[in-house]
């Protein structure tokens, strides 16, 4: 056993820290800190351009496509340090979802057309997988794409397509063959969201934001060359894409950062003049949250270091998702509880992003944004395989039940 970062990785951590310190614009960090989730698109694209200059914008890609060849622990360090410094993160739809599918299964044309755009942070991608009536059940997809000459004609409806209204392109799972078993006959199409026949509706959310979208496709004509890989193999690509990062759903970096913010609030907010961080009940909640985050961090490290385990990696991923989403909710609830009645004021996303005074008697800078995040974080145990689905998967694959 070797339970510490070796010298190589320690040096790498310093390198990342120095880079972020020198290159992350303070205003961008401030906005990101307030938003918690990467809400400001231009900040993300700008940050990707900054990273691209250092060749770090697609660190998970092979070197030949502009990636880095880092070890899993280097990726861990990169993510952790970036979020620790309130960097905006990457456009993962491109870098971690569709990008790897394109360089693994895509045509040369697709590679040359799309990979540089992703790498340079030129636009963001939307994911068209879920459909109404098929939340956790992707095998009942009903959006069809029928080949007519050199074009697919796409009809159907997608839902929960995050950021579709701000994205230039989307990757869609569509049914190209309706005569075979449901899990066959599905293909992956890249679709320009400006194509006629596409209507995007932003769904108003519990937090007042509206980045989740419905995408309606009505006789949308998509060039056949936008099919990724083979017809009917979409299911495989979809799983490849979702499986690409087993540890991401732990939200470990996010949880670490949000817990830090909670502690900062606990230092600023007082009761009868005593900071809440010094009150036994809040101290205990903060400390227990921290211990659990620490455990989750080591669960992630165990996966990254490829510990030999008796269970399939997918089972571990389910466990990480369960605990990670639970902690997201626990930590944001803690932030809100620390704010007390101040948490009740509604801030529209646009207000949240504005500079707030740290010294405002009623509404200092750490107030806006927190409650909205706590509200939307209820979805953490729903999307990407709900809490119930993850438990089903563990029961089945870890215990054969």
């Amino acid at each position: 056993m070797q339970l510490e970062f070796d010298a190589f990785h320690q040096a790498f951590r310093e390198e990342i820290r120095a880079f972020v310190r020198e290159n992350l614009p303070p205003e961008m960090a401030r906005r990101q800190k307030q938003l918690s989730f990467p809400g400001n698109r231009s900040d993300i694209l700008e940050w990707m351009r900054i990273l691209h200059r250092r060749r770090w914008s697609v660190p998970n890609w092979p070197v030949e496509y502009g990636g880095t060849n880092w070890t899993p622990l280097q990726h861990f360090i990169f993510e952790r340090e970036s979020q620790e410094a309130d960097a905006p993160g990457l456009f993962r739809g491109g870098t971690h979802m569709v990008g790897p599918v394109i360089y693994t299964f895509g045509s040369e044309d697709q590679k040359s057309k799309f990979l540089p755009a992703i790498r340079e942070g030129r636009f963001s991608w939307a994911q068209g997988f879920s459909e109404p009536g098929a939340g956790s059940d992707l095998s009942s997809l009903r959006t069809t794409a029928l080949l007519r000459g050199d074009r697919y004609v796409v009809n159907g409806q997608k839902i929960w397509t995050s950021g579709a209204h701000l994205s230039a392109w989307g990757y869609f799972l569509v049914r190209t063959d309706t005569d075979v078993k449901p899990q066959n006959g599905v293909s992956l199409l890249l679709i320009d969201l400006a194509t006629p026949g596409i209507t995007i509706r932003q769904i108003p959310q519990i937090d007042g934001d509206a980045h989740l979208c419905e995408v309606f496709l009505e006789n949308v004509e998509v060039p056949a060359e936008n099919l990724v890989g083979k017809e009917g193999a979409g299911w495989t690509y979809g799983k490849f894409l979702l499986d690409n990062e087993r540890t991401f759903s732990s939200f470990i970096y996010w949880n670490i950062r949000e817990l830090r913010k909670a502690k900062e609030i606990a230092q600023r907010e007082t009761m009868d003049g005593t900071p809440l961080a010094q009150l036994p009940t809040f101290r205990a909640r903060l400390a227990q949250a921290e211990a659990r985050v620490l455990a989750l961090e080591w669960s992630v490290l165990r996966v990254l270091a490829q510990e030999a385990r008796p269970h399939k990696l997918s089972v571990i991923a389910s466990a990480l998702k369960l605990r990670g989403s639970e902690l997201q909710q626990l930590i944001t609830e803690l932030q809100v509880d620390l704010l007390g009645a101040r948490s009740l004021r509604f801030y529209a996303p646009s207000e949240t992003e504005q500079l707030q005074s740290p010294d405002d008697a009623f509404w200092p800078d750490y107030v806006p944004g927190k409650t909205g995040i706590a509200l939307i974080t209820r979805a953490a145990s729903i999307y990407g395989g709900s809490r119930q689905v993850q438990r089903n998967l563990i029961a089945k694959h870890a215990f054969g039940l």
Partner: protein
Amino acid sequence: MDFSLSDEQVLLRDSAERFVREEYKLDARRRLVAAGDPISAEHWRQYAELGWLALPIPEDVGGLGGSFVDLMVLMVALGSGCVLEPYIPNLVLCAPILDRSPARSLLGAVADGSLRLALAHDEAGDRFNLAGPRTTQATAAGDGFLLTGAKTLVLGGPSADRFIVSATITGEPACSLFLVHRDQVEDQVEQALSRYPLIDGTWAADLSLSVEVSADALIVRSDRATALLDEAIDRATLAYLAEAVGSMETCLEICSAYLKIRKQFGQAIGKFQALQHILAEMFVEAQEARSILYQALSQIGADASLRRRAVSAAKIVIGQASQIISRQGVQLHGGYGVTDEYPISHHFKRLMVIEKLFGDIEHHTTRFAGTAPGLQAPDSSPAA
């Protein structure tokens, strides 16, 4: 003991349930919130017509002299619709204070809907300690007072005509209460009233005070003000908790219906035992919530210490029930749960507001422990 409603209470409940059905369908509520108006004048008029504004006001000043149980019946029913009107800030928080002041003749105007009130009491750094000293100062000025300070989270403030403002008269140990016209507030400072919505679509305001008022603006002097505020806040808290009970019971209905309609993997999701068990637990929570509400009701007219204890117990149990029911309610809805387009998210936010107003679970746990037999300072009696 008897938990049954009188005939009048049944009528009251039915009228409120009808109002909710007719005026607070989901789309209507969403339109009201989107309109950005701190109050629906039309709704307030209906509240007056239906006698709700008169309900808790004494008969001799134009009210109906209803009991607190009557009020509870109304609030449970209104809670099922997550109504937006500032009923509690006006009728439960402010009216009883006015009732015990020289200005009680104004209550007739409150009862007929022509006058709206708001309590301006919270200040920076309070964190639920609403009995603490006020930094807002009342200094002698001419025949009257100059009030200076800043107030926050004034519930119903944006739609109020007058404010009951707490302020410390120079040299006095506790705060007194002043009745101040909205115009007086707004005339004297730029942007004296800063209004904002809360997450549930109701409205509050911050007040920046630098107002000269006449001597008769002083309606409750410091010797009585703190006890009066304490009682008013406890009663308002309990009224909100009654709303929460109505909201939670509605959440159960909403979720039950959704589990039967929504299909996945080829069957209604209500067939999944894991979801059934979640709903069953929500049922237990809702039952306990209503039970502790009754308990608090039984003590709302009791001595301050018994009343405080009972209200805090209700705040704890109903707060915890709210969290479980609203969080699991969203979970049962899947992605639709976090949209504004399903009623469960509206209840979620309303319940969260109620959970935190006038002290959260943490605060009331401390207050409750302070009155619990057996948790006092140690004595010498033999144990166990």
